[in-house]
């Protein structure tokens, strides 16, 4: 039986009043007719009724308020349609427990959701660190521990610079300096690579991305740092590099020995050999040297294709360079009865911006080709001419020329024009490909004009150096490594020796 609380309380007070009436009546009957007792009973009943009413009234007021609050809470938060129909306490209690249940359920959902996010964050192969505006750590996921050697408990609340040891090349990177400048960080990564050293001394190659974020309210900015591990990629790259380098090493070592013993044999025995045997020995030496060039070229092509073939342009006197290359190859041309010459330009040739040893390689390659494909008694002319903001170098021969259909393929890898003049395997088919790559890296162009039977002209252009570039080149040393003939000198060491910094031996 359901009765409203108010009805119940009135019923209770009624029972109390009746009880009071009965007791008063009994006392009145047994103790003689004293009307005071009846009066007391009557007043008592009245009190009970009034107080019951008052209590009920105040309670109703409270319940109304509570109901309003619950109703609002329900509507705002859950909106599940539980009406607070009656302001009755029992109803209110029911509603209240229902709402509590919903809150618990919701909290459970929240926790589940949070766990999910947490698991997701921890399972990321990227290290994720969230920072507040001041650079203090808010979130630190599991992968971050791998990179830093710290656990989340150790670092949350600490400043990011205390935790990360990042290096760009040799320079230590203070990450908080780059939070607002993620582009600069990306540049360092591209140019020098970024490494992170963990607490236990492990080094990882990484890429870092910095994202600015807004937490909850708009004034509170923060940052998300994401680290990607590039160590494996790097190792893979290096392994590839090592393989090519090692292959070159393994091929070159026996070749060095072959060239060495051939020369030793020649110097000890050469005079005593018959002309025929001398020729054999000469061919052995010649082909061993060619094999060396082939290995060099293969190595260069592999570098070009990997993008690790670098040029270090400086302001350069092209005329001297070309003259010198001509001088170096004079004997080779003369031995074939060719007339190799440098044609002086009437105009003044400006300095160019170029890598001297790479350009030397190109010029030597073009002249050597001309010597190879030019018959006895013909001529090869080398010239340098200014062309506006460029300087052009031409190697012109009166040789056999190149068929039209071959011209377009001339600068591709391993392409060789087969011809009557070419005996055996003289070219590697890589020289022009390398030359074209070198000139392209300089921002120049390489071209060929040819007519079968009349000869060929190879020419390339190089950019003129600005006066600022010339001044700068004069004031600094260039890069360190080049390929070419001769001992490659360490310029820094040379300047130290020139400064007399070392005692003489």
């Amino acid at each position, binding site marked *: 039986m359901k009765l409203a609380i108010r009805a119940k309380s009135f019923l209770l007070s009624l029972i109390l009043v009746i009880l009071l009436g009965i007791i008063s009546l009994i006392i009145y009957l047994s103790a003689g007719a004293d009307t005071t007792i009846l009066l007391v009973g009557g007043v008592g009943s009245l009190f009970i009724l009034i107080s019951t009413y008052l209590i009920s009234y105040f309670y109703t007021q409270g319940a109304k308020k509570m109901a309003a609050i619950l109703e609002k809470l329900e509507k705002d938060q859950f909106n599940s349609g539980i009406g607070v129909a009656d302001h009755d306490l029992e109803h209110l209690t029911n509603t209240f427990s229902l709402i509590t249940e919903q809150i618990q359920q919701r909290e459970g959902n929240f926790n589940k959701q949070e766990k999910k996010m947490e698991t997701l964050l921890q399972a990321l192969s990227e290290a994720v660190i969230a920072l507040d505006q001041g650079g203090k750590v808010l979130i630190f996921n599991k992968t971050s521990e791998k990179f830093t050697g710290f656990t989340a408990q150790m670092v949350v609340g600490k400043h990011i610079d205390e935790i990360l040891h990042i290096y760009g090349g040799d320079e230590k990177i203070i990450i908080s300096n780059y939070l607002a400048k993620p582009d600069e960080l990306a540049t360092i990564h591209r140019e020098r690579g970024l490494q992170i050293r963990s607490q236990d001394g492990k080094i990882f190659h990484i890429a870092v991305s910095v994202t600015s974020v807004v937490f909850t309210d708009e004034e509170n900015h923060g940052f998300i740092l994401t680290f990607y591990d590039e160590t494996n990629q790097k190792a893979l790259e290096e392994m590839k590099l090592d393989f*090519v*380098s090692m292959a*070159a*090493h393994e091929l*070159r*070592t026996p*070749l*060095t020995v072959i060239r*060495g*013993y051939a*020369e*030793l044999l020649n*110097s000890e025995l050469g005079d005593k050999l018959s002309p025929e045997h001398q020729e054999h020995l000469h061919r052995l*030496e010649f082909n061993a040297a060619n094999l*060396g060039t082939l290995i*060099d070229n293969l*190595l260069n092509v592999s570098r070009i294709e990997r993008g690790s073939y670098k040029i270090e342009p*400086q*302001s*350069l*006197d092209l005329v*001297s*360079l070309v003259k*010198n290359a001509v*001088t*170096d190859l*004079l*004997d080779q041309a003369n031995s074939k009865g060719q007339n190799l010459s440098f044609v002086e330009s009437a105009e003044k040739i400006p*300095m160019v911006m170029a890598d*001297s*040893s790479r350009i*030397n390689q190109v010029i030597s390659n073009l002249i050597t080709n001309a010597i190879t494909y030019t018959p006895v008694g013909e001529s090869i002319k080398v010239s340098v001419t200014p062309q506006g903001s460029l300087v052009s170098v031409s190697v012109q021969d009166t040789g056999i020329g190149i068929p039209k259909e071959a011209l377009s393929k001339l600068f591709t890898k391993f392409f060789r024009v087969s011809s009557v003049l070419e005996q055996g395997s003289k070219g590697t088919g890589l020289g022009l490909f390398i030359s074209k790559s070198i000139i392209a890296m300089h921002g120049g162009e390489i071209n060929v004009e040819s007519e079968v039977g009349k000869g060929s002209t190879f020419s390339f252009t190089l950019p003129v150096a600005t006066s600022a570039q*010339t*001044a700068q*080149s*004069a*004031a*600094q*040393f*260039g890069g*360190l*490594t080049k390929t070419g*003939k*001769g*001992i*490659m*000198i*360490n*310029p*820094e*060491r*040379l*300047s130290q*020796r*020139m*400064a*007399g*910094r*070392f005692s003489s*031996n």
Partner: protein
Amino acid sequence: MKTILLVEDDFHIQEIYRTTFIKTGNYTVETASDGQEALVKLGSHIYDLILLDIMLPKVTGIDVLRAMRAPTSPTKDTPIILITNLGQEDIIKEAFKIGADGYLIKAQFTPLDIVREVDAFFQQMKEMQNQPAVPSAETAVPAPASIPVAAATPSVPVVQPPYQQPVSQSSSSQPATTPAAENPQ
């Protein structure tokens, strides 16, 4: 007579280089076949030049170089030229940072070429020492990055390449590394 320490693990290369140097009558040659042996031999002689291979057993050439350039090493100022067949430029870069004076690729030369290169290198050193010390070498010595010290072909008179000289003669009062060199015509 100059003394060379030849550090080379390949027996044949060691043999032909040693023989060729000695045959000139201008050099005596000490040899070491691995990094450890090289380090032991450092103390026993004063060398005029060290030819150092990079790929060495036991102690790598780079580590040997580092030890040779240590501040207390007797060879800290001795010229060191790397002789290698590796095609890896970053190793050379590292070696130059440590203080190697130069490098050459063995397979690009015959033993006689090497002797000529070394002759030219000593010649250059001698010319340098005859010149007064340059007060501020850090500021401007416009030496190009790579300087072949000698033409490799024997029949051509050894002409120093003109691009070995400061690229801008007028802008520099520095002595040229090879003052005798004239532009070949």
